[in-house]
């Protein structure tokens, strides 16, 4: 894809020797030469292959499985069904912790969704296991599948997303609508979408005896998952080792335990041999989460000048029949625009599907998609330019709470993005612009917004006798570049070059780096690493300061500066000593520092913290044929301090392309009679190809944040999706005059 060449790196501050530098990925060479090992690349001796047989119905029960036929197939070693599934130490129908979901591990013969595991076949070869699963020839007693608004069961949920309130109100909504000159209503539906990480969920499970377990698996939450597996298998947490050096994408789907992987681990224990399981692409459409469908309605009250007087965002969100994860779409309206009254509320809808889960920008993506279309409709209704309308309704403080922002360079994002895009002079009316080939041209925009959650994290930093360092945390690199960015943060704290820092990560027996999710991994694990590095330096300084032979003797209260492998006296930088010399003279082989994610709780309460951005889209639409092409995407984002602009740009590009995918392509096509997903493959579950993304540009708007955390880092992983979906839909409206009410936008919507 001819991405625009990166702009010069200059505009944002350099905070030290390493961060701010556009280093290439430290693991890049391993990846392009195929030497980076993913879970399924592991082949321990004596390996068995496991394959799940999955249900083809959405609801009912399994009445027969031809286990004898499967077992008779050459190479098949064992078939696990509800009749012989070994026991688990935890009831899978009981939620385990905040990120724990009820899961299907052959606890009974019930079927709750299509592609649910109903048996596990283990064999000497993958081929034998696949054929064994086919030979089971399962029979069902089927009940009608509930697949939509009309047959699903509606309910009032206790929470949306992961523990967020399902109903949040600020101000007096009725008064707000009463004060309005006009009310603009927008209805938007969003489909079920699947993460479709390139690397399918896979695991290689090995037991040492009955109580030591090693798992090679792609995992976004190493220590949390380790603890959960320990509970399921009734062994101490320290006896579980998860190795996850690389993930071929996670997007939220590899943070939560799933049935097929637990079954494979059980099989390995029972059969006393290592077992590998890798889901097929089609099998990923069920047991490993997805973005649930939503039906959203927004009502905006507007006064004569175009100010929002009331904002009501209502969403019906689908979940499974047995577990709750409701896409928190309505919450996207709580923090985006100023309004004296806001109500965000969600209704649950139970369908016969696998349980949805967090998928890149859960809630923010689908909520922003609807909100930004509603805002565009409101600007239209007021006869205002969409950017002017957004500026008029700019939130100077957090809506509802009135808290000040820890930083908010959104105005700069609007202006930088608009300038780069060439927004000025955009005609207000739709269908005004054509290109030289007669294609309709439209411009649209959206505001991007994402909160800054932090997760508990720990790290260790060891300064070694040769003056190099080892830093350790159980971090997760799912392609975003943690191997590089986290090492940069650690190196900076240690006053070393990244090449002098050995970074150990991706294994669960290292200090807990928390979840790689919520766009909070760099901030959380980075803070822990930073603090560990500073701790190691402090300990080293203590050694030197107490040593009469050191030029730093007595530096104690004055302090030292760590730079390029040496400690310097803060008051006299000419007096310095190298780390190696300090250690050698004091007879230490190393100094170990530890640190944890720590931020000022009072500050976290006092300030509202978000990453912000503005996305501008140009589309061309064939006036006769209804085909849409996004010819330009420009995003301008402000997300605090930028550790590695190259990696950050990639996150923004990926996020914006994801938004394009949401707007025009992605949707699971569920047969409404059977609940079967008819496009469970990468040919027909469409994501954009290079030719769909001729030009995407990300502007990094400088922003300094003194409150979000001591490093000033916000998140960049998900924000690019928000804003973009609406920007494209609004551009389509500007090109064609058609205001769409569903995603993805289809040809027939524009004919």
């Amino acid at each position, binding site marked *: 894809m001819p991405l625009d060449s990166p702009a010069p790196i200059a505009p944002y501050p350099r905070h030290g020797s390493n961060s701010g530098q556009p280093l290439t990925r430290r693991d890049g060479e391993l990846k392009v030469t195929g030497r980076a090992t993913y879970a399924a690349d592991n082949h321990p001796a004596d390996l068995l292959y496991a394959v799940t047989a999955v249900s083809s119905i959405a609801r009912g029960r399994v009445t027969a499985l031809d286990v004898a036929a499967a077992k008779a197939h050459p190479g098949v070693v064992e078939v696990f069904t509800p009749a012989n599934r070994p026991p688990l130490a935890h009831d899978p129908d009981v939620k385990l912790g905040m990120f724990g979901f009820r899961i299907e591990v052959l606890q009974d013969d019930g079927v709750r969704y299509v592609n649910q595991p109903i048996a596990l076949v283990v064999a000497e070869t993958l081929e034998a296991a696949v054929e064994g699963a086919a030979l089971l020839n399962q029979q069902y007693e089927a009940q009608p599948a509930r697949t939509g608004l009309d047959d699903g069961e509606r309910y009032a949920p206790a929470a949306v997303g992961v523990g967020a309130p399902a109903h949040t109100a600020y101000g007096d909504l009725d008064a707000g609508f009463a004060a309005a000159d006009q009310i603009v209503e927008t209805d938007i539906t969003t489909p079920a979408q699947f993460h479709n990480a390139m690397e399918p969920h896979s695991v290689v499970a090995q037991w040492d005896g009955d109580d030591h377990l090693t798992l090679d698996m792609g995992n976004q939450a190493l220590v949390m998952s380790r603890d959960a597996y320990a509970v399921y298998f009734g062994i101490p947490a320290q006896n579980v080792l998860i190795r996850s050096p690389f993930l071929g994408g996670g997007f939220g789907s590899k943070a939560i335990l799933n049935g097929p992987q637990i079954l494979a681990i059980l099989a390995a224990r029972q059969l006393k041999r290592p077992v590998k399981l890798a889901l097929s692409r089609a099998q990923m459409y069920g047991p490993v989460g997805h973005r649930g469908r939503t039906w959203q309605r927004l009502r905006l009250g507007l006064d004569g000048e175009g100010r929002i007087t009331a904002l009501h965002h209502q969403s019906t969100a689908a979940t499974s029949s047995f577990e709750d994860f409701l896409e928190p779409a309505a919450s996207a309206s709580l923090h985006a625009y100023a309004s004296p009254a806001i109500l965000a509320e969600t209704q649950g809808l139970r369908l016969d599907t696998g349980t949805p889960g967090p998928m890149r920008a859960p809630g923010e993506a689908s909520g922003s998609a609807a909100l930004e279309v509603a805002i565009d409709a409101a600007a239209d209704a007021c006869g205002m330019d969409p950017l002017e309308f957004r500026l008029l309704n700019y939130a100077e403080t957090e809506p509802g709470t009135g808290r000040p922002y820890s930083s908010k360079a959104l105005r700069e994002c609007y202006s930088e993005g608009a300038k780069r895009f060439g927004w000025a002079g955009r005609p207000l009316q739709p269908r005004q612009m054509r290109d030289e*080939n007669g294609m309709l041209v439209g411009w649209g925009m959206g505001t991007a917004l994402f909160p800054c959650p932090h997760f508990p994290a720990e790290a260790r930093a060891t300064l070694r006798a040769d003056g190099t360092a080892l830093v350790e945390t159980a971090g997760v690199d799912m392609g975003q570049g943690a191997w590089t960015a986290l090492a940069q943060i650690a190196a900076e704290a240690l006053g070393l070059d990244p090449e002098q820092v050995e970074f150990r990560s991706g294994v669960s027996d290292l200090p807990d780096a928390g979840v790689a999710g919520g766009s909070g991994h760099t901030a959380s694990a980075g803070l822990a690493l930073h603090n560990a590095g500073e701790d190691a330096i402090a300990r080293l300084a203590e050694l030197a300061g107490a040593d009469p032979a050191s030029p730093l003797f007595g530096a104690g209260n004055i302090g030292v500066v760590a730079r390029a492998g040496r400690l310097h006296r803060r008051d006299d930088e000419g007096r310095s000593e190298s780390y190696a010399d300090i250690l050698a003279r004091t007879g230490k082989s190393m100094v170990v520092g530890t640190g944890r994610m720590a931020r000022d709780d009072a500050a976290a309460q006092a300030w509202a913290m978000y990453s912000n951005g503005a996305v501008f889209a140009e589309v061309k639409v064939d006036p006769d*044929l*209804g085909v849409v092409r996004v010819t330009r995407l420009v995003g301008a984002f402000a997300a605090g301090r930028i550790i590695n602009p190259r990696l950050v740009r990639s996150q923004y590009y990926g996020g914006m392309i994801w938004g394009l995918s949401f707007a025009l392509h992605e949707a699971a096509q569920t*047969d409404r*009679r059977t609940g079967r997903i008819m496009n469970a493959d990468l040919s027909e579950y469409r994501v954009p190809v290079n030719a*769909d993304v001729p030009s995407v540009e990300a502007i990094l708007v400088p922003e300094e944040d003194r409150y979000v955390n001591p490093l000033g880092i916000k998140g960049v992983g998900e924000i690019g999706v928000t804003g973009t979906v609406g920007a494209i839909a609004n551009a389509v409206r500007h090109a064609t005059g058609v205001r769409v009410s569903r995603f993805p936008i289809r040809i027939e919507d524009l004919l």
Partner: protein
Amino acid sequence: MNRFDYIRPASAAEAFAEAARPGSAYLAAGTNLLDLMKGGAARPDRLVDISRLPGLDRIETLADGGVRIGALVRNADLAYDAGIQRRFPAVSEALLSGASPQLRNAATLGGNLLQRTRCPYFYDVASACNRRTPGSGCDALHGENRLHAVLGWSEHCIATHPSDLCVPLVGLDAVVELEGPGGAREVQLEALHCLPGATPERETVLAPGELIVAVRLPPQGAGLAAHSRYLKVRERTSFAFAVVSAFAGLELDGGTIRTARVALGGVAARPWRARTAEAALEGAPASPDSFARAAEIALADAHPSGENGFKIALARRLIVRALKDALAGTPEAPAALPASPFAPHPGADHAA
């Protein structure tokens, strides 16, 4: 996995003999057949691998000026053949609009003609499908069918034939050369694929064991070279099957149409030659009115088979566009985005 025999015959005669036995299937590059086997939608007992049969991989110019293309010629080789690009440019454009470079490097001409429908219920063995399992029913009929047929379908099957290549080929009067246990014969490409009627499982007129050995393009088709176009509406800019596609070729006599060829893809179980539209065009002025009338006539018998009524309007508009583009003249060099309405001019900026 399902056990099957794999046979690599040394000669065509040996190939027919093997393939005539029930449960056999020819294997060319396997880009379609192996996918179907992996999903269980095809379960042959015997694969007869024709990919190494000698002599089937040539493109020859015939004495009469026509072209004979061997059944094993790779899609990429055919697309980039200089003679094809010059004399039958729509064939090249159609090929390049399909699949991906990797697939085109592998896929063969014969396999492209005989590729199976992309109806998702045909692929999904848990669904009822008359084409896959005769008499089991058609789950597409009231299911997810926005991309299904609007012409020539029956209650028994509403699937479409997915090939791009076949659309210009059928418009260019291509002839398919067959050899089989019963000897050699020829059929018009237009008559190769069957409409479903009550027997959708009968997809082509091939007898058991019959092998496509070549496709012939008569020389007359080259007369359209200056005014021909293939256009494909698809849901992403590349690597997607057609929602609807159209081939239009014209021979002009001043402002009057002497010869017209119009064919549609993605609308029926066969590449759809719009002969009534051609008849309406021939002798008529090359004008938007004539094109619109031809488009009306071409879709006169169309009916939605489900939630796909939009394809009828779309097909009409696409015919008009393809005729307009053909009138404007064949692009001199292959378009940057083959068959896309977004890159009408050769060398047009990729970024549109």
